[in-house]
């Protein structure tokens, strides 16, 4: 094999490699959010209503997988609940009404962003409480440090120091 031919082959190899990589990169970058609607028949024909249904559904927990929304989950129940959301959106119910319908059946747990109640108070207040506690600790530490400023040397100590150095 001639050297020029060899170079050409290498070029081709890297060329195809780069093309492939760019292709995959584009595929990954352009991938839509991972919604589990696997069947286009699930979607509402009206794109605005479908977008609303997706927004509501992505705030509702799948009770089977528990850490996925019903829009993301592939579970059978999630599909049924997606259909319920779409049914109600189509019927003209408001977002709040659809969520309330779900909460009546599955409790606040069904909401991925739970409302502020006595039970969820700590959940929301913890960051602020942590800041307050940290701030207080820092303040106490500082004022203690300030209180521990050593007293100036006495005359005798100073004389001793001079003697030593």
């Amino acid at each position: 094999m001639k050297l020029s031919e060899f170079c050409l082959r290498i070029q081709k190899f890297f060329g195809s490699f780069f093309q492939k990589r760019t292709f995959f990169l584009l595929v990954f970058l352009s991938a839509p959010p991972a919604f589990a609607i696997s069947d286009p028949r699930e979607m509402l024909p009206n794109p605005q209503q479908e977008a609303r249904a997706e927004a509501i559904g992505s705030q509702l927990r799948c009770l089977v997988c528990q850490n996925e929304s019903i829009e993301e989950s592939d579970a059978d129940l999630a599909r049924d609940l997606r259909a319920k959301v779409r049914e109600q959106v189509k019927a003209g119910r408001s977002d709040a009404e659809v969520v309330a319908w779900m909460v009546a059946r599955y409790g606040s747990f069904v909401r991925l962003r739970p409302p502020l109640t006595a039970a969820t108070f700590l959940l929301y207040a913890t960051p602020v409480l942590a800041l307050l506690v940290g701030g207080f600790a820092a303040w106490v530490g500082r004022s203690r440090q300030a209180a521990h400023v050593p007293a100036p040397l006495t005359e005798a100590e100073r004389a001793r120091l001079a003697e030593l150095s």
Partner: protein
Amino acid sequence: MSGAGIARRRLLMLAPLGVAAAGGAAFWTMLTRMQEGRFDPHDIGNPMLGKHIPDFDLPGVAPAQGFSANQLIAAARQQPVFLNFFASWCIPCASEAESLAELGKRGVQIWGIAYKDQPAKTNGFLDQYGNPYAKIAADTTGNTFINFGLYGVPENFLIDAGGRIVWHIAGPLSDQAIDQQVMPTIAKFKS
């Protein structure tokens, strides 16, 4: 360094151990309760407890008759009706079959709702594991299942004469639950 300072330093060194010990104790409590069946981390609690059952009218799984919410409530006039959601494809449903049979022997009315199941398969399941049901309705769409706030099978309910859900368990029935929960609840709501 003063004695008080040393004591303070020792306390600070012990603090992480104390935190670890508290965490360990908490996990130990959680795990023993899970083992004894007193704590289920997956249980989301059913907000329907204490509320009126949703309306439904379902066809039967032949030869068994289907039923409606009103028929169920009417049957609960003397004592609560035990309502069991099951499916032939559900493994825990097979495991609770013996306990359901035991409950039937104690004179409790058991009504079943087969969730997303084919009638032939439901009947095959009953042939294999026994049939404790007075009536069996088929919820083929899963609508009634959702209206009851269910997310899996089996789930069990006690419905009183007023149509209220007076007891609920998200999972298979056990003999222990019969003795400790079901029978006492029935006794309480008997008229």
